[in-house]
């Protein structure tokens, strides 16, 4: 490869990574700033962390968000796995086209539309059958499940097409009933995909501002809603401290996951080499 192009690629890569990481780095640096004005340096301090931990509002918003995220991730994984199975393994069923459309649309639907339409649904239902009486944690969770399950379904579907059907066919040829094959062969193969789906659904829920603001009611502010209402009016140093905590938690999680992946990859390469030398 000619050297000139490599330099070009390398410099764009460095520029891109700097572009992605410098803002986060600055966010972290300014969280240790003593000054009340975020962008003016006033010496090193951890006072914003103290005020963050003492803020009851932030804690209760965080707890609400975590509750919604866990319930959402669990239900979205269950429903999304069923949907992904249906898409990848059941070739023909009535209304398949509509089903495919309803799975892929939430992935690209603008959040404002999803939020607005779900709110109008909840209001209409409230008028017609008296449920939901008031909007809050339940309506936010339902809204989150609806868009998260589509993401899970896509992960499961692509994993199933990646695995192929040979193992399942072998079990069927050996006389196992389809349901047995599903429980003993397909689901264990899907476990990593389901875990990935759960984590993605969890993060999507924890991250959502727009849909939650539409379908939430008075008194139930999720963490993103609280952050938004504070930063709307300008920079807030305690939000920098909160951001630092979140970035650290995510970085640690991703690094652990990455480390496991790389180790697996190396193990596989070693196995392949061993198999080659024998």
């Amino acid at each position, binding site marked *: 490869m000619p050297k000139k192009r490599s330099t*070009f*690629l390398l410099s764009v*890569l460095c520029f891109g990574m700097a572009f992605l990481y410098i803002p986060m780095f600055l966010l972290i640096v300014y969280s240790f700033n003593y000054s009340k004005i975020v962008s003016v340096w006033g010496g090193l301090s951890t006072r914003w962390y103290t005020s963050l931990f003492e803020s009851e509002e932030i804690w209760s918003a965080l707890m609400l968000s975590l509750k919604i995220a866990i319930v959402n991730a669990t239900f979205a994984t269950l429903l999304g796995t069923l949907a992904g199975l249906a898409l990848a393994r059941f070739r023909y069923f009535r209304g398949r086209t509509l*089903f495919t459309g309803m799975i892929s649309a939430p992935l690209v639907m603008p959040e404002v539309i999803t939020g607005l339409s779900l709110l*109008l649904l909840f209001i209409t239902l409230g008028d017609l059958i008296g449920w939901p009486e008031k909007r809050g944690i339940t309506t936010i969770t339902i809204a989150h499940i609806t868009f998260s399950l589509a993401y899970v379904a896509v992960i499961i579907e692509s994993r199933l097409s990646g695995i192929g059907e040979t193992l399942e066919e072998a079990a069927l040829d050996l006389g196992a009933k389809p349901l047995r094959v599903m429980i003993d062969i397909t689901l264990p193969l899907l476990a990593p995909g389901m875990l990935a789906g759960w984590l993605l659904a969890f993060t999507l829920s924890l991250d959502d501002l727009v849909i939650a603001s539409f379908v939430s009611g008075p008194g139930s502010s999720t963490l993103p809603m609280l952050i938004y209402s504070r930063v709307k009016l300008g920079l807030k140093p305690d939000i920098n401290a909160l951001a630092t905590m979140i970035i650290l938690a995510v970085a640690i999680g991703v690094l652990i996951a990455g480390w496991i992946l790389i180790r697996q990859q190396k193990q596989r390469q070693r196995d392949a080499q061993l198999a080659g030398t024998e």
Partner: protein
Amino acid sequence: MMTKPTDSALTASRLNESAKMTSHRQWVHVVDNFFQSRWKGLSVAIPYVWLVIFFLVPFFIVLKISFAESLIASPPFSSLFEWSEDAALKMTLIFDNFAYLWEDDLYVKTYLNSVKISTISTILCLLIGYPMAYAIVRASGTMKYLLLLMVILPFWTSFLLRVYAWMGILADQGTLNSFLIWAGIIDQPIRMMYSEFAVYIGIVYSYLPFMILPLYANLEKLDLTLHEAASDLGAHPITVFFTVTLPLTIPGIIAGGLLVFIPATGEFVIPDLLGGGNVLMIGRVLYDEFNSNHDWPVAAAVAIALLILLVIPMMLYQHAQSRQINN
């Protein structure tokens, strides 16, 4: 006759018992059969029903309200279906809301501006993301995974906080202005916040990973022998890129481009926090129409119009997605 009465009673009770067992077995068998034959239907039905109730029906409600009349009441719109005296369902469609959107310059301008901003952002993402994806594909072993992780990591952190980070950088007293003044490039801070420039930066920053990942997946599968063949035949690297690599990665470009373009067009947080009142984007107008003006029919009409605008890109995306999974 050898059989004693007691024997026959015994046989009868045995028969009875075995009949009971058969009926029990039969029952288990029926349940088993039911699941063996119905579990597929059931496992499709559960997510299906969920999506119909919480995804499909809401759209028809939005569609219905977009044709309703605005009222000062709760809920603030007129009923679309009314039972007239002869008990026939009468439907009143009011196109006023759509006519209003069309006649009011603001909405047309906002639509065009949203499309302009998301198109330019998509191109910028492609220009930065393509070389990055290419460089990652060419990196070796562990480095490749590390770089991929670095691209994915921002995706898992809070979107809102990443937009917030730019508020600190672009503010009048922000990091970028302080840096430029310190470096002697400018004397006075430049106003960067609350402008289209800030919105472009926010969108490119937030959606760059969505561009890189599909491109990476596409480039990763490329057959490198094709490049070697082209080079061996004397093609200049730039010619090889434009005649071999680029045409082969069009599916990745389309997938990545749509993943940036579609959500960027309806974006709310970025124009709201970084663009302020100066940048007109449709997602923000919809949000304000609903939450501040309480004009639900107009908000619903804006949503339907936005959907019409995005329906073709969305169908393109679905088509690309299903083709990729089938391959």
